[in-house]
C-alpha cells in the first residue's frame, strides 16, 4: 500500500477516505467538515471576551445551545488532530519545521500562510464549507453547488499558481 516515498497510494487513500465518509453519512447523517470548527472556535472566543457579540447576525445561530463548541464538527476536527498526530508519531514524521523551498524567505512564507488563512476563512463562510464539508461531502451526495465550488476553486488555483511558484521551488 505504501509507495516509495513512505505514503499511501493516493487512489487507495481515496477509497478508504470514501468509506470513512460513507460511515459518517450512515452514522451522523452528515459528512466530515473542518472550516466550521474554526468558525465556531472564533465565535466562542469572541463571545467569551464580549458577550454582546451574541447579537451578531452570524454568531447568533451558533449560540443557540449556549456553547458554539457543542457541535459534531468541532468534536470531529479534534479527532482529525488526534488521528493526524497519532499517525505522524507512528511514522516518525512529527518534526517542527516550515514547508517551503529551502531558499525561500521564512517571513514571506509565513506572511502568505497567514493571508491565505485570512482570505480562506471568508471563502469558506460564503461557500458554507471547505474541501471537506463542501467539496467532498457535497459531491459525494450529488450536490450541484459543490461542483460549482470545486471547479471555481481549482480553476482559480491553476490560474494564479505561477505567482507562487518560488515559494515551493517548483
Amino acid at each position, binding site marked *: 500500500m505504501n509507495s516509495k516515498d513512505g*505514503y499511501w497510494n493516493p487512489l487507495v487513500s481515496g477509497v478508504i477516505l470514501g468509506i470513512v465518509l460513507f460511515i459518517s453519512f450512515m452514522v451522523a447523517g452528515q459528512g466530515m467538515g473542518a472550516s466550521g470548527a*474554526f468558525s465556531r472556535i472564533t465565535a466562542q472566543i469572541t463571545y467569551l471576551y464580549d458577550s454582546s457579540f451574541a447579537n451578531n447576525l452570524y454568531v447568533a445561530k451558533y449560540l443557540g445551545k449556549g456553547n458554539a463548541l457543542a457541535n459534531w464538527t468541532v468534536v470531529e476536527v479534534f479527532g482529525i488532530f488526534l488521528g493526524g498526530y497519532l499517525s505522524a508519531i507512528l511514522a516518525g514524521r512529527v518534526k517542527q519545521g516550515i514547508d517551503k523551498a529551502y531558499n525561500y524567505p521564512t517571513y514571506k512564507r509565513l506572511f502568505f500562510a497567514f493571508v491565505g488563512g485570512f482570505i480562506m476563512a471568508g471563502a469558506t463562510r460564503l461557500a458554507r464549507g471547505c474541501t471537506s464539508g463542501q467539496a467532498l461531502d457535497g459531491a459525494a451526495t450529488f450536490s450541484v453547488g459543490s461542483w460549482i465550488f470545486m471547479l471555481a476553486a481549482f480553476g482559480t488555483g491553476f490560474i494564479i499558481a505561477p505567482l507562487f511558484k518560488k515559494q515551493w521551488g517548483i
Partner: protein
Amino acid sequence: MYPLFTTGMIDSNQNLLYGLIIGILFGVVLERTGFGSSKHIAPIFYFKNLKVSQTIVSAIVTCATLIVIASYAGWLDYTQVFIPETYIWPYLLGGVLFGGAMVMSGWCPGTAVVGFASGKIDAAVFMLGLLCGMYFYFDIYDSISDFANSGYVGRFTISDLIGGDIYTSSLLVTIFLGAFLAIFMNTMKSIRDKKEKQ
C-alpha cells in the same frame, strides 16, 4: 435504518463519540496520504503530483457509489442525509477566493490541522489567519449578508438539474465528472513532464 442519528437510533452524545472516532480515522488517512505537509498539496496546482485530485476523485466516487447502493437496498434514507444547500453566486466567489488562498498558503482547513499536529509552523500561522479571517467575516456579515444568501436554490442535486434519480443520473454524472477530472489532470501532467525533459 440509517443514518443512525437522524432516524433516532443513537442519541446526540453517542453521535459526538462516533464523530470523534470518524475524525480520528479522517486524520489518519490525511496524514498517511502526505497531507500533513503542504509540499504534497501545493504541487497539484503545477500538475507535478496528482495526490490531491486522485484522493478527492476516488473518495467521491467510492462514497457516492456506496450511498447509492445503500439507498437502493433500503438501508439508508437519502432524504435524511445532510447536503449543503446551494447558493450559486457566493459559491462561485467563495470558490475563487478559496482556490487563490489555497495556492497562497498551501493549506486548507482540514489538512492544516494535520500539518499542525505534525509540527508545521506554517500550518499554525495559517490556522491563526483562519481564526482572524472568521472574526473579520462575522464583523462585516451584516453588510454582505444579501450577497452571501443570493442565488439560493436549496437542496439541489444533479438529478434535480438534469432529471432522472440518484441511481441513474446522479451517480453516472458523478462518475463522468470524476473521470473527466482524472483525465484532464493526467493530460496536464504528461504535458508538463514532457516540457520538463526538454
